[in-house]
């Protein structure tokens, strides 16, 4: 017993001596370490705001900022702000430091960490220097990295908005999806906030898009900038609509639209190119066709042994006008060709006719995908001619 007390005492003494030594070392090194860390943070901040003198971190808890904003530093002499933004690019997160001066102009942007595939984002930020909020969109994209570019631009925009908010102003920080959701909800509150885009199988005059309430309460028609809510019984909810009766008619058309399946086995020629075909009461066709994707070498020949095609759903009037278009599935390269599944791409085809459907903006860096997509539409036109009984 006496021995173990002695042993323990020795142990405690050693612990104490070591702890004292550590405390001394810590008191010497801690200020240096803190200075080093501050210096390295400051160096990173100076890179995007070369004019800055000293920076202090802003407490963000009292502000409502874009979701990408991780940290904000204020230049102590009021020259502006530097925001650290964490965005979701392709593959993984990208960290962008962006400085904004008091006039709302970008003083510098730099990507400090990313696992992106290309690595061009390292220098991409240079292009934003000296740009204001209106000029950001015009900055050249990185060829072949649409998503990275988009994420980068959004990050810079978020930094500009952050500077406005911290400066006491107010900005709409909602994302495009949130704005759409808010508009839809405002147009038809009965939809309880959950809407689904309706694939237009019938031509509706001057209507750009239709959203159906998932609970069946009604529809929201988008015409230009206007959102018109119509209940399922045809009552127009939105005020100030010029021709409410036409929207009631649209609802009737939608509800009456019956799709009749066409038996493709009668048309062996179409087997390789058409997945399914339907006909509406008014004579429009709804087709799902295949286009050769990048996975198929050559780009313009459909290879029956490969599954890697682009599948497109397209509705076409009897006089060969495209009513609506949608990408059903694709297996294109992530970050490049897979942009063909974005509405910003396939939405371009709606309203085009057989004469001008090729006049669309190609996906940058993915020519073969774009060609394959156009091929799918071309095949839809060809198929309709066959279905109509004409020559292919």
């Amino acid at each position: 017993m006496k021995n173990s007390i002695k042993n323990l005492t020795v142990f405690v003494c050693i612990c104490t001596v070591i702890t004292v030594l550590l405390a001394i070392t810590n008191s010497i090194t801690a200020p240096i370490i803190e200075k080093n860390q501050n210096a390295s943070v400051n160096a990173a901040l100076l890179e995007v705001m070369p004019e800055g003198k000293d920076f202090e971190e802003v407490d963000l808890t009292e502000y409502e900022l874009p979701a990408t904003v991780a940290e904000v530093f204020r230049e102590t002499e009021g020259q502006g702000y530097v925001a650290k933004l964490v965005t979701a690019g392709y593959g993984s997160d990208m960290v962008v430091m962006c400085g904004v001066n008091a006039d709302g102009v970008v003083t510098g942007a730099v990507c400090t960490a990313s696992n992106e595939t290309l690595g061009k984002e390292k220098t991409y930020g240079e292009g934003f220097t000296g740009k204001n909020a209106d000029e950001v969109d015009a900055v050249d994209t990185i060829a072949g990295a649409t998503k990275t570019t988009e994420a980068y631009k959004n990050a810079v925009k978020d930094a500009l908005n952050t500077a406005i908010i911290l400066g006491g102003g107010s900005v709409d920080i909602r994302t495009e999806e949130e704005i759409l959701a808010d508009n839809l909800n405002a147009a038809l509150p009965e939809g309880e906030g959950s809407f689904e885009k309706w694939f237009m199988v019938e031509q509706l005059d001057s209507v750009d898009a239709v959203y159906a309430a998932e609970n069946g309460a009604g529809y929201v028609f988008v015409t230009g900038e206007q959102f018109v809510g119509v209940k399922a019984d045809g009552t127009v909810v939105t005020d100030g609509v010029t021709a409410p009766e036409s929207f009631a008619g649209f609802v009737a058309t939608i509800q009456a639209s019956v799709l009749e399946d066409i038996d493709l086995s009668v048309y062996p020629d179409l087997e390789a190119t058409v997945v399914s075909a339907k006909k509406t009461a008014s004579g429009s066709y709804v087709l799902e066709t295949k286009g050769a994707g990048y996975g198929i070498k050559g780009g313009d020949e459909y290879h029956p042994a490969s599954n890697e095609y682009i599948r497109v759903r397209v509705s076409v009037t009897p006089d060969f006008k495209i009513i609506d278009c949608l990408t059903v599935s694709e297996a294109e390269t992530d970050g490049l060709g897979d942009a063909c599944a974005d509405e910003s791409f396939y939405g371009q085809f709606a309203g085009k006719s057989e004469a001008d459907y090729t006049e669309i903006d190609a996906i940058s860096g993915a020519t073969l995908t774009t060609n394959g997509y156009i091929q799918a539409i071309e095949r839809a036109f060809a198929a309709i001619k066959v279905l109509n009984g004409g020559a292919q």
Partner: protein
Amino acid sequence: MKEKSSLSVFLNGIIKENPVLVLVLGTCPTLATTTTVNGAFGMGIAALVVLICSNIFISLFRKIIPETMRIPCYIVIIAGFVTMVKMLVQAFLPDLYATLGVYLDLITVNCIILGRAEMFASKNTVVSSALDGIGMGIGFTLALTVMATVREVLGAASFAGIAIPFMESFKIEFMTKAPGGLLVYGLLIALIHVVTHGKAPVKASFSCEGCIHSATCVSGACKREGVES
């Protein structure tokens, strides 16, 4: 115990009982920090400093430290010096700190240091313990640097961060990754075997003697269960 000559104590660690290549101790940092020469050299020096300090300290108090409590005492002393070295590196060599990261902390459980405390410092004078620490530390640093040189030159076509121009097109990136570490280590051990005509690595098999845990293996687990090969 008979005192050996200072020179032989010192050289022992560098050549005859090189901790990495002959005793096969401290394998974790050997593999993990040898992707760059700078990192490996820094790791070696950090371990060297800890080794010297802990050897001196333990040897100084070897008569006071109670037999039954010796392992916890050693661990506290070693962990203390490791933390001190870590703080100093963080303050004065921030780049090295960023490279080594958690492996600096893990010097605490580097078997070389605990092993030398148990096998040497606890039985020898302060002077020879210090010499032993220096020798072992230099041996460790040398082995790490050699391994890192092979890996960095072949894997990253550079030496200590300086690019070697004509190697650029012959990079074997795999060398700087985890499998490359194990491969180079295996080949180096085989090379030592050839050079010494098979004498050195006799000790290097995973016997209780070479086992890192021999210091802490209080219950003689290996012997009882025949863990050794």
